[in-house]
C-alpha cells in the first residue's frame, strides 16, 4: 500500500501517523506539502491531526482551501480513499468531503484521554479488521471534536450506515458517560456515501504498540493494507 500524508503549516501528528503506517507496511509514506497541488499517485491519502494554520478562525477552514486539498477533492471523487484524523476530520468537513461539522467541546476544554469506541460496521476499507459492535480503546486529543449535523443529515447518515464509530462506555453502552466532547449521538467518526472517505476524531495512530497506549488502533491500518494492496 502506498500512502501519502498531507502536511500543512501547523500539522503535528503527521509523524505519528507516518510511524503507524510504516509499522504495518514496512515503508515510509510520502509526505505531501500543502502547496503541492500535484503529488505522486497513491493508494491512500491521510489528512493528519494538528493545528493547521493555528486552528485560527475555525479549525480546518484555512487548510480546506489549500492547493493540496483541491487535488484531494479531485482524487476522492475518483475513489481514492481518504483517512482524515482529528484536525484532518475538521479539514475534510470544511472541504465538503464529509457532512457535518466539529464544534468546540461541550465542556470547552481540550481533552486528551483514552476513550472507548464502538465499531458500527465492519463493511468498509477502514474497519474490515474489526467486528461490528466491537469495543476498542484509543486516545482522543482535541478541543473541537463535538460532532454536529442537522437532523436530516443525521437520519441520512444513520440510514445509509455512514457512522463509523461511536463513543461508548468500556462495556459498549452508548450513552453520555463515554462521550468526551458532547458529540451528537456519540458520533466519533463518519464515512462519505461510498465509504471511501472516513473522518474520525480519535487517534488510532497513537494506539499501535502495547507499551505506548495499547494496540487497538493497529487493525485499522492493517485492514487498509489488506484492502488496498
Amino acid at each position: 500500500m502506498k500512502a501519502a500524508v498531507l502536511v500543512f503549516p501547523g500539522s503535528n501528528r503527521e509523524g505519528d501517523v507516518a510511524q503507524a503506517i510504516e509499522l504495518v507496511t514496512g515503508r515510509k509514506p510520502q509526505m505531501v506539502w500543502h502547496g503541492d497541488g500535484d503529488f505522486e499517485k497513491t493508494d491512500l491519502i491521510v489528512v493528519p491531526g494538528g493545528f493547521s494554520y493555528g486552528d485560527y478562525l475555525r479549525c480546518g477552514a484555512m487548510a480546506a482551501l489549500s492547493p493540496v486539498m483541491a487535488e484531494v477533492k479531485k482524487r476522492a471523487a475518483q475513489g481514492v480513499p481518504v483517512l482524515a484524523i482529528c484536525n484532518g476530520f475538521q479539514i475534510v468537513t470544511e472541504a465538503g468531503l464529509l457532512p457535518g461539522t466539529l464544534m468546540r467541546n461541550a465542556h470547552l476544554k481540550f481533552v486528551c484521554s483514552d476513550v472507548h469506541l464502538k465499531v458500527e460496521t465492519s463493511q468498509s476499507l477502514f474497519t474490515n479488521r474489526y467486528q461490528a459492535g466491537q469495543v476498542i480503546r484509543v486516545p482522543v486529543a482535541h478541543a473541537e471534536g463535538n460532532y454536529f449535523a442537522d437532523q436530516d443529515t443525521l437520519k441520512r447518515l444513520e440510514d445509509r450506515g455512514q457512522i463509523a464509530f461511536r463513543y461508548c462506555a468500556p462495556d459498549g453502552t452508548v450513552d453520555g458517560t463515554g462521550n468526551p466532547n458532547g458529540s451528537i449521538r456519540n458520533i466519533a467518526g463518519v464515512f462519505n456515501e461510498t465509504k471511501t472517505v472516513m473522518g474520525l476524531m480519535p487517534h488510532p495512530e497513537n494506539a499501535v504498540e502495547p507499551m505506548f497506549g495499547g494496540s487497538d488502533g493497529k487493525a485499522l491500518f492493517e485492514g487498509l493494507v489488506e484492502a488496498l494492496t
Partner: protein
Amino acid sequence: MKARVHVTLKNGVLDPQGKAIGHSLNRLGFPEVGDVRQGKFIELELDETDKAKAKARLDEMCRKLLANTVIENYSIELVG
C-alpha cells in the same frame, strides 16, 4: 476603507461557548442573564475605494473563508 464582519451561529445550531458563558454569568451572580450566543467580529482594512465593489468582495470572502455557511450567518458593514 474599513469593514466589519459579524459571523454568528444560525438559529438552531447549538452554541456550547455561549451556553457556558451564560452559565458562568449566572453562577457569578448575574441571574438576569438568559440565553447567550457568541459570535465572531472581524475588522478588515481594505485597499478599495468603491463601496459596491468592496461589498461584493467581502461577500465572497465570507462565503469562501470567514463563515461556514452550513452553520453560520454573516453580515457585512462598511465604515469610513
